[in-house]
């Protein structure tokens, strides 16, 4: 099929960017979206133009590197997938596809479609861990049973791949779903409970400091999350935060 791509080109963080139009032909419906961009880049290199820069790595939907805003939605129109798992069969011959970087003050553009998500790193560094040393003498893994539903909920929260789609989808560029997933995973497990108070306060404080917007419960994050992380995690974090603030 033949398509028209409108791609955001921006030289670096300090220059202004704009949409540029590229026609592309003979796209196979079996291609992934990123493979389609590979083809475009090969053509651009051939013509002596600079290829479009975009983030990608594992190409199997787990590393969370890829990040495009496609036709106004993070990771494109399909659900429960990352951009690398989006296939061209989701589009029709003759379609115009707008491709932009994830946009947020806390995700500055590096170049073209590549953004800097270090703000996520700093949120996790602020408290996203259990303070346990690697001694080889920690207690036996089965010494503390964990209720299966808690273990399962913790796992569901922990499936977050840190891609930033929640921020990109949110009209407020809020990072609540991401932060909540991290807080929830630990809050639900006995190992993480010990530090829960300190953790939630520190992580929320860092989240606010990074300049993300405030949650207004639109729910866009949950819909666009490639791993389907539930809004319940946000409620849980709110709860955790309130009770931690009272302590």
């Amino acid at each position, binding site marked *: 099929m033949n398509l028209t791509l*409108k791609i*955001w080109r921006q030289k670096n963080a300090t220059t202004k960017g704009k*949409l540029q139009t590229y026609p592309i032909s003979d796209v196979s419906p079996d291609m992934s979206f990123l493979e389609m961009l590979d083809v475009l880049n090969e053509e651009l290199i051939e013509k002596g133009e600079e290829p479009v820069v975009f983030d990608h790595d594992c190409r199997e939907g787990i590393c969370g590197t890829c990040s495009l*805003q496609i*036709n*106004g*939605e993070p990771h494109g*129109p399909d659900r429960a997938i990352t951009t690398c798992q989006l296939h061209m069969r989701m589009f029709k011959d003759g379609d115009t596809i*707008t491709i*932009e970087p994830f*946009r*947020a*003050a*806390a995700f500055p553009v590096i170049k073209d479609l590549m953004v800097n998500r270090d703000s996520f790193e700093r949120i996790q560094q602020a408290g996203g861990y259990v303070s346990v040393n690697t001694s080889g003498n920690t207690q036996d893994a089965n010494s503390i049973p964990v209720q299966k539903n808690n273990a399962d909920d913790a796992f569901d929260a922990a499936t977050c791949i840190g891609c930033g789609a929640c921020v990109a*989808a949110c*009209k*407020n*560029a*809020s990072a*609540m779903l991401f932060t909540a997933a991290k807080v929830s995973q630990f809050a639900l497990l006995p190992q993480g409970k010990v530090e829960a108070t300190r953790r939630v*306060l520190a992580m*929320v*404080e860092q*989240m*606010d400091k990074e*300049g*993300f*917007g*405030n*949650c*207004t*419960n*639109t*729910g*866009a994050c949950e*819909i*666009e999350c490639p791993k389907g992380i539930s*809004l*319940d995690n*946000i*409620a*849980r*974090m*709110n*709860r*955790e*935060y*309130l009770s931690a*603030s009272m302590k």
Partner: protein
Amino acid sequence: MGGIFNSSIARKVAMALSGLFLVIFLLLHFIINFTSVFSADVFNEYSHFMGTNVLIQFLLQPILILGVILHFVLGFVLEYRNRSARPINYVRFNGSANSSWMSRNMIYSGLVILAFLGLHFYDFWIPEVVHKYIESHPDDPFRYYHETVAKFESPVRTGLYVLSFVLLSLHLYHGFSSSFQSMGWANKYAKGLRGFTVAYAILIPLGFIFIALYHYFNNV
């Protein structure tokens, strides 16, 4: 306690609490107004009580006004912060793919409600204050019904009221249930609660619309 009052979550909770307070007030207001449909006397009685009771006039009324102001100011702060969290907008943003119109446009439904409040104050509250505290008319427990009904003679005003209540409904549709989420409510009753809030968001504004139209057509 640290920066709780500065934190995004604390602001959300303040938003939720003030919102819930206004939701309760709205119910009360509705009940009193609704009496006007079937009994001028009951309406007058309730209105007289509300308008003359010292506790209500000098304690609850200021709290209510503060609540309204807090809710609006916080709403503007939220909106400002949220806009600056994305300084460069998307060229193409498909919000309807993943969220409701109501949830994305609380600021606009809120602004309409604010404008309506202005009209409402102009219509009722300011004349009331002038009547009671500036011009110092003698107490008349039977004036409320006529004054209220008289306002709905104008089709323009009635139309504005109806429109405002539609926006109020949209505002409540998202805001009421959202406030529980903000306060961390997520359990097996959440679904039922959501149903209740939706019913409330539709029925109460509809009731107000009914009252406005009822008096309008009675006047005709």
